[in-house]
């Protein structure tokens, strides 16, 4: 018996370790996305999100005030100001005035400028440019500084996605459109699948096993296969692109999994109860409504979560069956893709939108999560 006890403990270890690894695998990128959503695009491009919370030593290119702001004092032309705009918490260590000679001068030292005059930069960013003649040109002098900068986060991305007048109207519209797609597209397949699952689990008729096998077989058919034929069919029968079409499509694509999941759960319900009810004279419909449905609630809820998440995050089916050439029926995912711009690459918007879009599914998940695990195990434990 020793070896059994030993096996058990080492297995527990393995389970714990793999759980930790899996959780880390999922959480790590999510955390990165969350941190990135509070950073500017330039920050994202220049440093990793894991550096975001530490003060960093950065090489910055800053610019003095343009020559037009110079003042004449005792025969000298002077431009003064702060490189950061105002003295902040950044501390300059060294500076330079040419891109190929960074850090040529210590703070407080005076550097000669190429076009005449001198510049002195202090640690807090204050500078003074002096020249015996007037400074010329349109733009200020570039100053390259190496500075210790405290971590900085911004809410700008969220403001952009949610409250920017240019897209907040579209976002609000897309939010309601998405709900209009998602709620019926979740309820309809559950209704149909529950009836079908009961029939396949408890009603005797010829060819039942074959029917179940076919439905399980449908699980492996990729939905991309059906896009064009189905859209052609919708146009043929006159539904066209629209809400009704997308509900039907989501229902069709969701049914095999729904039926399979619910049937496996219902088949596991105790046979005695159902037979007792039959003896007492209950019809199939009464059994279904009064006994099966209440008992199957966990399975129904868990499938509802699946279907809701899938339809909420869906872009492909919506693009094909819903969004017509007028663009009135846009959904959240489509709206987010639009925010990315013609050539993509706006990572800060992507990260932010992901968290905006994830908020509703998260709510749904936490509201119904206690059913999820029970439903997932549906049919697997007798």
């Amino acid at each position, binding site marked *: 018996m020793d070896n059994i006890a030993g096996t058990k403990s080492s297995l527990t270890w393995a389970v714990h370790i793999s759980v930790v690894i899996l959780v880390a695998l999922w959480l790590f990128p999510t955390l990165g996305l969350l941190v990135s959503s509070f950073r500017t695009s330039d920050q994202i491009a220049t440093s990793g999100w894991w550096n975001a919370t530490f003060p960093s030593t950065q*090489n910055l290119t800053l610019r003095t005030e343009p020559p037009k702001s110079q003042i004449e004092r005792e025969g000298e032309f002077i431009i003064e100001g702060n490189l950061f705009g105002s003295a902040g918490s950044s501390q300059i260590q060294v500076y330079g005035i040419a891109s190929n000679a960074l850090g040529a001068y210590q703070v407080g030292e005076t550097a000669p400028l190429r076009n005449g005059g001198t510049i002195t930069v202090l640690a807090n960013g204050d500078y003074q440019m002096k020249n015996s003649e007037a400074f010329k040109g349109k733009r200020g002098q570039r100053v390259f500084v190496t500075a210790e900068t405290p971590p900085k986060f911004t809410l700008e991305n969220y403001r952009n996605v949610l409250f920017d007048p240019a897209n907040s109207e579209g976002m609000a519209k897309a939010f309601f459109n998405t709900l209009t797609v998602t709620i019926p597209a979740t309820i309809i397949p559950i209704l149909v699948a529950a009836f079908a699952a009961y029939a396949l689990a408890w009603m005797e008729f010829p060819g039942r096993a074959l029917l179940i096998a076919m439905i399980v077989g449908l699980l492996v058919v990729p939905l991309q296969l059906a896009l064009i034929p189905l859209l052609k069919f919708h146009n043929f029968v006159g539904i066209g692109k629209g809400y009704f079409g997308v509900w039907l499509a989501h229902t069709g694509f969701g049914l095999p999994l729904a039926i399979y999941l619910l049937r496996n759960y219902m088949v596991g319900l105790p046979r005695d109860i159902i037979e007792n009810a039959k003896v007492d004279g209950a019809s199939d419909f009464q059994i279904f409504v009064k006994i099966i449905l209440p008992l199957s609630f966990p399975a129904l809820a868990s499938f509802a979560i699946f279907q809701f998440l899938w339809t909420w995050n869906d872009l492909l089916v919506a693009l094909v069956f819903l969004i017509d050439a007028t663009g009135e029926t846009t959904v959240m995912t489509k709206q987010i893709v639009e925010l990315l*711009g013609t050539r993509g690459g706006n990572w800060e918007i992507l990260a932010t939108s992901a968290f905006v879009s994830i908020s509703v599914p998260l709510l749904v998940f936490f509201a119904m999560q206690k059913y999820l695990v029970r439903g997932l195990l549906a049919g697997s434990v007798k």
Partner: protein
Amino acid sequence: MKTLISAAALALALSVNPVKAQAPLPFAPGTGDFNWQSYEALKTTQLNGEQVTVFGPWLGPDQKVVESVLAYFAKATGADVKYVGSDSFEQQILIDAEAGSAPNVSVFPQPGLAADMAKRGFLSPLSTETADWVRTNYAAGQSWVDLGTYANQNGKKELYGFFFKVDVKSLVWYVPENFEDAGYEVPESMEDLKTLTDQIVADGGTPWCIGLGSGGATGWPATDWVEDMMLRTQPAAVYDDWVANRIPFDDPRVVAAIEEFGAFARNNAYVAGGAGTVASTDFRDSPKGLFSSPPQCYMHKQASFIPAFFPEGTSVGEDADFFYFPAYSGKKLGSPVLGAGTVFAITKESKGARALMEFLKSPIAHEVWMAQQGFLTPHKGVNTKLYATDTLRAMGDILLKATTFRFDGSDLMPGGVGAGSFWTGMVDYAGGKPAKQVAQEIQNSWDALK
């Protein structure tokens, strides 16, 4: 209960379909140096609320500009114009056309795709007057007609595509102040450019930022390099033969052009991060090296759209500028320019679609976009003073000064090559495969498509 449901449905319907305000007109009719006669002339066509749907590749800020241009058409004719953009235009237009729910007008980013659609009978031909109009009113008009003429399903060649909005690709971007700091001059010839490249290395700097990464389209920036090199090492006729596969892809002249690109991209000292990072660096992040401190590189070759990916607050023309990717002075091939453009085509016949194509011919359509951002046009009848920035005007000049203008070859090749094996082949080449072998493989994939 019933009234509650219907009330809820009504509330939902109201919240779902707010009446979409027409995009505002950025320039009030009658003001500025615009060609307002052409705008007034549009009013002779009255469409009275007829819906015209337009589907294109532009999103985000570009979409706002397109909508503002279309708003003039809507205002003048009374049509209800809807524009929808998509980042997966190429796939979606096929699905919609196949299923019969295509928009009235589609904007193709690649003529190759439009030709494909024409062949399958999804496009409506434009009138012969339009062909004549393009011939006389566009600079190098005949070449634009040729680029928009495709064979339909019966093999008959007709004009289907109308070019509107052009990009120049033969540009090298740099930071003028960095050049000043190091004492470099803008090179006038390819020989000078190579000398400058070596000079920068000798001074301890890195001359180039090159990035080929672009998600599923990784490799396309390299195709632009190779095409530009083809135009700079061979006469334009050879380029045309190459694009049409009249000479094989592994012809020594093509292999030589690929190796010209390799001379820059496969030299560890020439490329920021080393040659090994070329294929994995995203083309959108690649130009940022120009602006880092210290600068990771001094030059970046990319089309006219790239300023959209410069760091925030970069002022083009001051913080960053461009010069023409020069030609060899020793080869006497003139100054060739590589470009690209978007093609408008009718995917669902209607009176409004025809009227919209007419609108695109009017100078006002070009001028309104020019005066906003990122728009170049070969239209000879527009007021070039209206270009929003000097930068755009200078790009326009490059177009006008070109002795040879050629369209992006990869956009003209069959999709399987121009948007497939050519891209992946270039990634392999950047990764160290011999040019000869890569060219051979691309030719094989082309043969397989025939």
